[in-house]
């Protein structure tokens, strides 16, 4: 007798993702990121970058639904932006159906993240870490 094929745990359950600005929708399994599930659906309605929360290319705004978020680069998602629903799709784990707006990567801010050091440093001239404007070079 053939063994009955049973779906893996959680199979059959999925969230519906609606990307309103592209007029596309796709399915996301629990535990998958918003971006990874889009790639699995062979869609391209969200731009793919590093897939690690670093580059800002997959920036979206979540208009409705529940989700959790792994740590994202502050260069691309400042705290006030996160509160306004902006997120990087590669770090978003949907917890319900979501309605999102993609193509927010062009809003990337130009900001330098300065290195820091706990140890004191003797400084000659202006300290680059305390001086955001670049000194003119000869």
């Amino acid at each position: 007798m053939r063994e009955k094929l049973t779906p893996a745990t959680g199979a059959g359950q999925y969230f519906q993702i609606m990307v309103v600005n592209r007029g596309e929708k796709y399915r996301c399994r629990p535990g998958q990121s918003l971006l990874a599930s889009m790639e699995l659906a062979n869609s391209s309605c969200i731009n793919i970058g590093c897939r690690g929360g670093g580059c800002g290319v997959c920036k979206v705004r979540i208009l409705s639904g529940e989700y959790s978020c792994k740590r994202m680069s502050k260069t691309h998602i400042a705290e006030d932006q996160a509160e306004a629903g902006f997120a990087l799709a590669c770090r978003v784990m949907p917890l319900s159906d979501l309605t999102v707006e993609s193509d927010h990567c062009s809003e990337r801010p130009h900001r330098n993240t300065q290195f820091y050091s706990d140890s004191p440093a003797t400084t000659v001239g202006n300290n680059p870490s305390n001086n955001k404007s670049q000194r003119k070079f000869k």
Partner: protein
Amino acid sequence: MKKGVMRPGHIQLRVLDMEEALKHYRDLLGLIEMDRDQQGRVYLKGWTEVDKFSVVLREADAPGMDFVGFKCLSEDVVDSLRAELIEFGCEVEDIPAGELLDCGRRVRFNSPSGHYFELFASKQQTGKWGIGEVNPEAWPQGLTGMKAVRFDHCLLYGPNIAGTADIFCKVLGFDLAEQVIEPDGNIIARFLTTSSKAHDVAFIEHPEQGKLHHASFWLETWEDVLRAADLISMNDVSLDIGPTRHGLTHGKTIYFFDPCGNRSEVFCGGDYHYPDHPPVTWQAEQLGKAIFYHDRQLNERFLTVLT
């Protein structure tokens, strides 16, 4: 090494999650974890590197590169270059010995492209990992992942790379080994060397300051690059492009991302450079072939995804 700068000595990278990053740099790339400091920074190196470390990871709220440091022949060289950097117009910061574990004092300076660089001459030498100095075996047993041989170079994006290249060539004695030139003569990519390697550091023109394109690690053979590609698939690592060959430097390569989006490269082979060689030139009209010698087509993600 016209002015006594020997090689890239270390790079400090920012990561969002240290334990995830170690799965990438230690377990996948195969770097050796050498030490950790009180700030929580982790120190690693490729197994052939004689100095104690070449990669420093720092957990932060945004990925990218803090600085890359170049090792000089002597403290006297560091002193004289420090004076020349100030004369040239750089802002110079003296970092005391020990700020990086078992590393001597460093001279840090800024650049028009918004990157920070360092010169140093002293770092503890622990020797190649896993093999002795006398009658050494070919390679150590017990390496993991891609078994990265050494930290090789980094590619940096920023504005006014001509100004940054001036610091490296006029002050630090680097040569322009390879370049990409637009029809109007504007140079949009500069690959610089202080050795016989095709690049010890490379720059591409870009409006945002201080960006990292990738940190690169050397492998011995094309077979090793293919094996790296297999490991990338086996571990579901974010692939950028490859395995393929570059036109620029002719290196055989694969690009992929660490868990917080910093791009890594492992590569083998490629061009060599001597100080009497003219720069190798690629025309911007052939940029697709210059970057991906086989596809001969530009890839938007490769050009624009940065940390």
